[in-house]
């Protein structure tokens, strides 16, 4: 097998050297508990404060509005359950979200439905965009929260959060956005977007796994999710993952510093792959708006094939990617994201996501196309579905 070609940066990213170097001392030498009142404890507390300031600078908010969590999923759970429970006291038990949110949001909504909340699930256009007018029309006097993702994890489409934010602010409804895919990849300004809460996760922008953050605008008070000690200004209990937090802060700082350069690079690789695949492999198409999408995301359907087949063929050539096929999960249903934008089941089964990162090269993009041009026709030749489709 040739050297590994990692094209699944939307799933997770490698920790960069700069981030690793920043984290290492906090795993070994500086082990003090930030809640302890002696010097090595203060050192740890100071490291967390630095990271909080780094995140605040990236999001254009106050450091005191940044709370560290265990992961993006925890941030989503806290924001949504916390807001729902807070507003339920005021008789507001209606939640609004979209059909193609990450499961961290959708399954949280589902759990709240079982507790008696009502959820409005907005449709998504064929281009993979939520319509702000749909949000406005769905808001009711008893709406507790709107939660719409900043960018989709599978098809990479960037949502009109600033427009949705203006509507929610005008109507006096809290807006949460799951920015796990967006953070570090596109500019995020919580004031310009007028969001009340925003989730992010370190491992999506070359930081470590096991550390997330939730921005909570001053004055917004979701009920606590983790109860215990007084960490994170008494709002998120549990001894802090200092190395993880340091890594998150540093990684986000670097991602924002290098954003323009990285985006241009990833876009170049993405556009090359999309253009070449659509030109050379019959029947293929790009999913999601071609312009309003994350710079590194290419999501392509290969009709007549099942995605796991492509995944395995690529893996045998040392290439890592991801598929929307059912075989990628424990159920037999294909991706809810692809179904939400109107793909037929059989199309969704044959859909692949290639997500590029700063470490990828044009040689890798070329290699991906070479391999696809070899394996797709070979697999299609044994597919009864392709046999029918090509006629």
């Amino acid at each position, binding site marked *: 097998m040739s050297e590994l070609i990692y094209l699944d940066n939307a799933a997770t990213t490698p920790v960069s050297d700069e981030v690793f170097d920043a984290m290492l001392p906090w795993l070994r030498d500086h082990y003090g508990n930030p809640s302890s009142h002696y010097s090595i404890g203060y050192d740890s507390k100071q490291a967390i404060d630095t990271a909080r300031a780094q995140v605040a600078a990236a999001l254009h908010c106050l450091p005191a509005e940044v709370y560290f969590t265990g992961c993006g999923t925890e941030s989503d759970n806290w924001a949504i359950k916390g807001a729902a429970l807070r507003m339920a006291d005021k008789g507001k038990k209606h939640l609004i979200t979209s059909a193609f949110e990450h499961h961290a949001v*959708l399954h949280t909504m589902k759990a709240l439905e079982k507790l008696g909340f009502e959820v409005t699930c907005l449709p998504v256009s064929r281009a993979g965009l939520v319509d702000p007018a749909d949000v406005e029309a769905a808001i009711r006097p008893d709406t507790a929260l709107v939660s719409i993702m900043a960018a989709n994890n599978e098809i990479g489409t960037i949502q009109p959060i600033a427009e949705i934010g203006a509507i929610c602010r005008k109507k006096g409804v809290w807006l949460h956005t799951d920015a796990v895919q967006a953070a570090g990849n596109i500019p995020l300004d919580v004031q310009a977007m007028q969001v009340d809460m925003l989730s992010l996760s370190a491992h999506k922008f070359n930081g470590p796994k096991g550390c997330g953050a939730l921005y909570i605008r001053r004055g917004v008070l979701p009920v606590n999710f983790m109860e215990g000690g007084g960490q994170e200004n008494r709002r998120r209990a549990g001894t802090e993952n200092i190395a993880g937090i340091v890594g998150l802060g540093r990684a986000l700082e670097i991602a924002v510093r290098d954003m323009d350069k990285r985006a241009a690079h990833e876009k170049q690789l993405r556009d090359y792959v999309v253009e070449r695949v659509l030109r050379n492999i019959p029947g293929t198409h790009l999913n999601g708006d071609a312009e309003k999408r994350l710079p590194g995301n290419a999501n392509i359907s290969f009709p007549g094939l099942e995605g796991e*087949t492509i995944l395995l063929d690529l893996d045998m050539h040392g290439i890592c990617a991801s598929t929307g096929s059912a075989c990628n999960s424990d159920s037999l249903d294909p991706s*809810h994201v692809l179904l939400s934008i109107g793909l037929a089941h059989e199309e969704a089964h044959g859909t692949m996501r290639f997500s590029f990162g700063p470490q990828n090269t044009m040689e890798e993009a070329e290699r991906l196309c070479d391999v696809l041009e070899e394996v797709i026709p070979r697999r299609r030749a044994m597919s009864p579905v392709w046999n029918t489709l090509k006629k």
Partner: protein
Amino acid sequence: MGMYSAKVMDHFANPRNVGELPDANGVGEVGNAKCGDIMRMYLKIEGNTIVDVKFMTFGCGAAIATSSMATELIKGKTIDEALQLTNKAVIEALDGLPPVKVHCSVLAEQAVKAALADYYTRQGIDPEPIVGKLAEDCHGCEEGGSCGI
């Protein structure tokens, strides 16, 4: 990818007996594209023997590997032997399958049975007493709720 045995990966990478059989006298197709699995099995039967077999499959790695293995297990065998092919035998011959992929081996068994049933039908013989009733193995296509969840 670590989820499959070496045997499964071998049959996935180099599937045996792929293609169509123009002079087949028994053809069976099971599964559907919506579920992500379709297997079509072609048999050429002379006397009581399966002298040739080919398959076409749309599906995951396990679907391709189980189709391939099933053709190997019945090629050159008698009809009676082919009728006794079980999905368990296919799984064993592949050195195991992950639990979520067991349905692929069921499809492979059913594809063989569907092709044999077609063979009997073409002979003017009711296949059901011989082949048995073909069960639908489609358990993944339920529509989701309001959010597809």
